[in-house]
């Protein structure tokens, strides 16, 4: 019985052309017993920074509350909204503070990073449960279906996908990966983030 697999759940983020997407499943379980099919793991940190928190469900909620607090403190002190790259470092340091008694969460961050010239660049990153950051150019995965997500994403993803094509790619990757994982699934949710709007879509999935 691994504590990372107790509640189940998976998250994936992908880069597209002037957009990013982040998706998760909706299952909350107790080992093999399903408890809820509307347990969201992706949270908006600002209008264009989203974080996905797969792992132990109690820590999903605790970390969401803690990030909200730390983010509010940052926003008040800096008098501006946080950028995704800065936010990943905030996540990393929050997790490393608990180096020898960690939160059992592997966060995934997706957002649009503001460039010095005023334009926006897609940004994704993931960390492990003690805050080691993985910056990726294509996609990042985490959760109980991460191995399957890697495989499917490797086959489906291609560079410079438009928002609608990116949505299709990430949605199919998610749905097909979680069907091979007993601890993830029960529906999914996808957020496609562009510089001026975010589209959230809830997907139906297999309920077995």
């Amino acid at each position, binding site marked *: 019985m691994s504590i990372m697999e107790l509640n189940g759940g998976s998250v994936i983020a992908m880069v597209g052309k002037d957009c990013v997407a982040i998706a998760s499943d909706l299952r*909350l379980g*107790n080992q093999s017993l399903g408890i809820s099919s509307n347990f969201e793991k992706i949270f908006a940190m600002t209008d264009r920074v989203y974080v996905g928190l797969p792992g132990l469900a109690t820590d999903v909620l*605790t970390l969401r509350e803690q990030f909200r607090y730390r983010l509010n403190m940052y926003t008040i002190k800096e008098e501006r909204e946080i950028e995704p790259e800065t936010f990943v470092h905030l996540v990393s340091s929050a997790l490393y503070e608990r180096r020898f008694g960690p939160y059992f969460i592997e966060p995934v961050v997706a957002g649009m990073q503001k460039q010095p010239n005023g334009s926006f660049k897609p940004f994704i990153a993931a960390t492990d449960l003690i805050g080691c950051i993985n910056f990726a150019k294509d996609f990042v995965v985490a959760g109980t279906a991460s191995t399957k997500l890697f495989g499917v994403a490797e086959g489906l993803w291609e560079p410079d996908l438009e928002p609608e094509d990116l949505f299709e790619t990430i949605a199919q990757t998610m749905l097909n990966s979680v069907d091979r994982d007993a601890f993830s699934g029960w529906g999914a949710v996808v957020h496609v983030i562009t510089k001026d709007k975010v589209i959230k879509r809830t997907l139906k999935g297999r309920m077995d």
Partner: protein
Amino acid sequence: MDISFALTGKGYVLIAADTTAARSIVKMKSDEDKIKVLSPHLLMAFSGEPGDTVQFAEYVERNMRLYHIRHNHELRPPAAASWIRRSLADSIRSRKPYAVNLLLGGYEPRERTPHLYWIDYLGTLATVPFGAHGYGAYFALSLLDRYHDPEATLEEGLATLRRCIDEVSKRLVVSPGKYKVKIVDADGVREVEL
């Protein structure tokens, strides 16, 4: 092993819990009330480690009462759920954690909506249309998947609840004999006979 069920219906939440207090293989008591009334529109079924359960339930009960007295207003169900979850989440990373699982049912008179929360000893909180703890969960959840209706009247809700209890009585080796059922709706909290 404690068993508790809860389900929502049209304007109410029903919570049922068995009434046995056991130690090892011996039934010590068969009329134990495992559902606390936290405030005029809030119910909480508790199960888990004997000792921890009552201690934690009373701690929550007194804090809900304190809030009511201080603010002249009861804590709303989502706020109460968050506070209770946080108590358990802090407790699990302490030297002596409470091993208590909860079903929290509430009714919000102003918005006229029933609320049900499934909470475990780790501090996991899930908003659910129906939920169960203990061995009963393995039998009742599939029945509730089939028969639960969020728009059901009280009679229909009680019939569904009876199905769950009957199934547990039929299939579980060590099934408890008696259950206590409480309801929370616009009129507040009261006990109902099955």
